[in-house]
């Protein structure tokens, strides 16, 4: 191939790819800004210096609003999600990663659209896009942690919710050890238990979005059966899907992003019976 042809092709490729550079941080292909273990350590440090996350709800039944992949920038769907959650007096809103595109300005926009303090409890976790462009620093500054538990107390029962950081495609060995200890020591104290993690564990369709390594998937499947986890909720794939394996319902929720044709979110209904769910599409 002649040099002139190579240069022409290179210029065309750069021109085509340059708009994507604003939303894709190509450094992430070969090097992370922080490892999952480093983010875990920072999350644990933040957890230890802040009060535990507990919510009291007045009735035996309550609903959790769950969204993923808002990819702020645009915020129309995000506003609708919080508006719907507040209107229905949701127990909490869980935000399962890819909240932003990683830029500091995206985090500022996201913060500006969060519900007013006291109106709705929100629980965010980091996704892969949130880590782009050194985004963990903004996430950590705004939210403090991406690995934690929160508990919802009804008058007669308590439910345990576990939030994991899988933004790097793996939960890492430290976070796995933490997850195991939480399930072993605390799961039996609670009525229901659900796990939230951005990267979808299971692969229901051909897609470029990736999952944890199969070795990690198998360890987690075993853990969730062994400890009777009722629900595992993921985002990342931008397409809803569900499967039941043992006692666990695995759910991938739609993307909330304004750019998504089939955008939506998830509602989880908690009662004495097994947790139920409903997809909501815009």
């Amino acid at each position: 191939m002649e040099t002139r042809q190579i240069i022409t092709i290179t210029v065309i490729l750069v021109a085509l790819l340059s708009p994507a550079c604003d939303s894709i941080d190509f450094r992430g292909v070969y090097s992370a800004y922080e490892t999952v273990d480093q983010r875990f350590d920072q999350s644990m440090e933040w957890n230890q210096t802040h009060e535990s996350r507990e919510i009291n709800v007045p009735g035996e039944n309550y609903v959790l609003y769950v969204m993923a992949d808002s990819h702020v920038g645009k915020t129309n769907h995000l506003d609708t999600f919080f508006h719907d959650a507040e209107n229905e007096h949701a127990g909490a809103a869980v935000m399962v990663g890819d909240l932003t595109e990683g830029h500091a300005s995206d985090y500022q926009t996201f913060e500006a659209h969060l519900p007013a303090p006291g109106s709705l409890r929100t629980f965010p976790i980091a996704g892969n896009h949130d880590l782009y462009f050194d985004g963990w620093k903004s996430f950590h500054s705004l939210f403090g942690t991406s690995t934690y538990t929160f508990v919802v107390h009804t008058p007669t029962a308590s439910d345990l919710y576990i939030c994991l950081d899988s933004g790097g495609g793996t939960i890492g060995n430290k976070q796995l050890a933490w997850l195991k200890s939480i399930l072993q020591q605390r799961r039996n104290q609670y009525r229901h238990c659900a796990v939230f993690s951005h990267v979808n564990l299971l692969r229901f369709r051909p897609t470029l979005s990736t999952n944890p390594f199969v070795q990690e998937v198998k360890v987690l499947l075993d853990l969730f059966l062994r400890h009777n986890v009722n629900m595992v909720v993921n985002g990342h794939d931008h397409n809803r899907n569900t499967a039941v394996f043992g006692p666990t319902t695995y759910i991938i929720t739609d993307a909330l992003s304004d750019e998504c044709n089939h955008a939506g979110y998830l509602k989880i209904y908690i009662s004495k019976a097994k947790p139920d769910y409903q997809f909501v599409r815009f």
Partner: protein
Amino acid sequence: MKSSTAHKLILVLSFTGMFTTSRAQATVQTYIDVGENNVSEGTFIKNACQVDYGFNRFILAAATQFDINGNAAHVFSGLHLSASRLLQIKTFPVKIKGYYILNRFSELMHETDWGVRFSTRKLPHFLFETGINFRTYTINSNARNDYQVDKANSKLHENFNLIYRISVYLKPYPNRWNLALSITNTDHFLVNQPTNPIFNLQGLYRIQPRLLIHFESWYESAGVFNISTNYFGYFFRTGIQWKLDKS
């Protein structure tokens, strides 16, 4: 002798004749893996043994894997069965392989994979392989009883997973020694999702015509296709391959 018995005998003799009169070749190989990853809880050591039997242009293979050290639930942790056929499609030498893999990774459940692969060494410095895999996770019957799991909820399927391997060899194949760099999502007892490539550097040396030794280093990086990479694991492998040539 009844005619049905005679027919059966003829079939058996024909089948045996196919093995004994044709150009048959058996190969035995064994290797050992030492490594660690984010879920291994320390160093793991695995050993595998494989027997290949080739006749005409067919190859039958059976392999077993043993977990010697690590957090595996069973010592006998893997089984791999395959049948291959060598073809010539125009100028392309192609190997078609049907396979079945059993992974006993837990006391409560197991994984099965099956599929078909196509590979070619048309270009002497390259190996290209692609195929389709079907994976099923199954909760064992004793676990279904212990955890009151409905049989309808005891299986999880991941279908039509693309598998691939691209290997670049320093020397043209075949050569007495070689170095190869590979990117793949599959190993003897492992089929990863297509978006989780694994990188492998392999060195091999044929000590004598029937004895080959190899050494490999594997690196697993999570999140590559998420453009948010993170170390997952690595392992080293060494083994020998011994050709029991009858010709």
